[in-house]
């Protein structure tokens, strides 16, 4: 489990097709913990591809979130389509230089190599665990004596604890992690019993240099560089494999010159003042379509907390039907949340965005 690396601001938000995306897990964690923004994970998790409960990279930010981050100067917007077209597909020398291309490829090769040796080691570990289990069940006949040397009793006893939390995530479908049932007295027979020849083959692979596995990276930065990126990636990294390789770090002349040719601020709906108001008060806001409102307001990280309010933003002089209040109030009360409406109160002659936001909570009285 690699702890998130620190992210230096401003970080890039990638815009494409009027959406605002984040790809770097470090940035996603950073935005979550430092800026109280969750966004919505819209990608699939390759380690658990057949479910919709846990999703993965990329993270889609609401335009409101992207706008607020840019206004706080914590982030800037990058036109990702142009960047990729220029970097990977222009043949006239404007794209990546040959050195950058080779650097990119060698960095991928490095990752692939690490992955290959990790995979080999895992197969090895699995074999050991399986063998020690065989030894424990007393089914001695099938295994040559020397094989028992691989797994000692201590490994077997430790195994359940070690296995449970971490490695399941890293090993995809290929590895079938041990479940608790396996440790019961009447253990299920193992589906796959390694034959000695197989075992020796894998160990030989592990000991010799493995061929690198092909890798599909998550982000394109590097090799691409966005104009404002602060120079080298932060060195305070506990795991070298997850940080960018030094060979691909940017050349000094491309470094932060906050250019004014940035993309325009993200267009936001009329409920933006309410969003900002709630966010300033440390609420986490998530899109609320599923609950029949504009935003769900959480008192803390939605990972841990239930939401308190269903929020709808309104213009100060907007007219709306009384039924909206009744409906919203009932809906909110029905799911044990408050229904909250709010808007920006504008005094005479004031510019937009300067007024105070006032909010009203509505609850069903149930007299």
């Amino acid at each position, binding site marked *: 489990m690699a702890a998130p690396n620190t992210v230096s601001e401003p970080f890039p938000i990638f815009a494409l097709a009027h959406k605002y995306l984040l790809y770097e897990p470090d940035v996603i964690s950073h935005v979550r913990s430092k800026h109280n923004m969750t966004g919505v994970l819209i990608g699939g998790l390759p380690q658990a591809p057949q479910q919709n409960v846990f999703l993965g990279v*990329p993270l889609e930010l609401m335009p409101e979130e992207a706008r607020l981050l840019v206004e706080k100067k914590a982030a800037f917007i990058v036109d990702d389509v142009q960047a990729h077209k220029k970097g990977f597909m222009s043949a006239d020398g404007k794209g990546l230089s040959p050195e950058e291309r080779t650097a990119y490829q060698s960095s991928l090769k490095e990752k692939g190599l690490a992955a290959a040796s990790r995979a080999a080691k895992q197969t090895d570990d699995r074999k050991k665990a399986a063998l020690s289990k065989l030894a424990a069940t007393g089914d001695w006949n099938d295994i040559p004596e020397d094989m028992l040397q691989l797994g000692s009793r201590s490994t077997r006893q430790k195994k359940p604890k070690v296995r449970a939390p971490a490695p399941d995530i890293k090993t995809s479908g290929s590895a079938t992690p041990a479940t608790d049932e396996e440790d019961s007295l009447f253990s299920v027979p193992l589906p796959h019993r390694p034959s000695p020849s197989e075992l020796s083959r894998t160990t030989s692979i592990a000991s010799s240099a493995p061929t690198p596995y092909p890798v599909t990276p998550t982000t*394109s930065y590097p090799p691409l560089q966005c104009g404002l990126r602060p120079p080298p990636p932060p060195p305070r990294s506990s795991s070298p494999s997850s940080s960018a390789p030094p060979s691909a770090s940017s050349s000094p002349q491309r470094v932060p010159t906050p250019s004014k040719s940035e993309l325009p601020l993200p267009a936001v709906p009329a409920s933006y003042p309410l969003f900002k108001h709630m966010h300033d008060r440390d609420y986490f806001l998530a899109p609320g379509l599923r609950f029949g409102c504009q935003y769900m307001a959480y008192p803390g*990280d939605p990972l841990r907390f239930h939401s308190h309010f269903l929020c709808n933003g309104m213009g100060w002089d907007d007219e709306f039907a009384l039924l909206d209040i009744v409906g919203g109030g009932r809906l909110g009360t029905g799911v044990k949340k408050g229904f909250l409406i709010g808007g920006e109160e504008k005094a005479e002659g004031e510019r937009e965005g300067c007024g105070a936001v006032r909010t009203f909570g509505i609850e069903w009285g149930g007299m």
Partner: protein
Amino acid sequence: MADADEDVIPRSGPMGEDTDLSDETQDFRFLAALSAEDAKLPKRGEKDFEPHATALQSNTLAASRLAMHTALSYQRIHQPKGHTVATYHPATNMAYAYNPRGPLFSKMGQVLSARDDPFGDDGKRGQRLWLLPEEVLYLIERGTLDVRWPSLEEDEGEFGLPMSLQGAYAMFLGEEETHDGALTFERYSVYTGLKRAGYTVLRAPTWNSPGLPPKENCYPPLLRRTWQTGLLDVSSFWKRLFATEGSGHASHDKPIIVPGLYRNYAEIYRRLALIDFHDPTAQRQPPVPENFTNDPDFRVTYHVWKPGSMTFKKSAPGTPDFRIAVVDARKTRVPSLEQLGDLLEASPYDPPREGAPFSQKLKNGYKNVILAVVDQGVTSYLRIADSAFGRERLYQRTFRGSGKRGGRGGGRGGRGRGR
């Protein structure tokens, strides 16, 4: 997490209609449990109400965040054994692969005909599988496919640089507009959500165009099949009865219910039914096709087949189980009757089972389509059905006693009348 195991629901198996785990952010620490075989997910309700600044709470949150970060940091690695390489084709914004292996490819991708293939009939055409943008993106995300940029001269080997997930999003979604493609984020997230749930999803013919005017199968069949004859005859009998009554009402000089002897309430109710209703079974195909238009925001986008259908074939997919129209919640308002009407008109006639319980018939309707409303990556599915309230007459329920439930209802009605 002892208490987490108490309230568990099986991961596979039918999801209750009111509990959708993806509604709320789930604790990523349970992902590990999910990857294990036969895993259980915790029910919702494991969260706290509000922060109370205890170390326990903040530690739990930190652990959840760390688990999430770890899950997100997963690297897509291709096993050499099942490694499939595809190449990006910028002109069409698609990707192609030669002889891809794996069960997923039996339901996606297509070999183009010599006329449609951008490379023409070059001998390898039969092995070349073209993948649509959403298919490529889904496969990359899943870690199944290794897509390469088109190779330049300086690249060694056959393939170009590996395309990252980010690059794939930038090209296959970001570039769609310039390619006149119709794949949007909303459409993609519906596609990938359904794929992850195991459905087979293909583009509908109305993907990028109004499509053909409603065909024969969009209207009730004219020929009566034998098993329908009885009931339909009854209804047409009533209809005839209506027609004569209707002309009687128009005269205004008689009371609606002429004084006389009535043996049951049904006859009276029938006479009271003055208001016309929309009858989906009475729609007929216009002899001359009308100028058919529909709103681009409300078109059937995907045809969807249930998971585990053994008969599905790419070349002849057959009738889809569901038709889904993807709607962007932030750009469109609640559809008007006209928009919904157009959408429903072009969907095939799918009457409820004869003799089904009353409420089920209303729910099923005579035509239906599913709206997938997407707000910032969060999808809600709504089923819109053309139900015929006018055809399900409450006072007539006693007459049809075919179904179990109908029979019970009839019994109740009978007792009521007897008193």
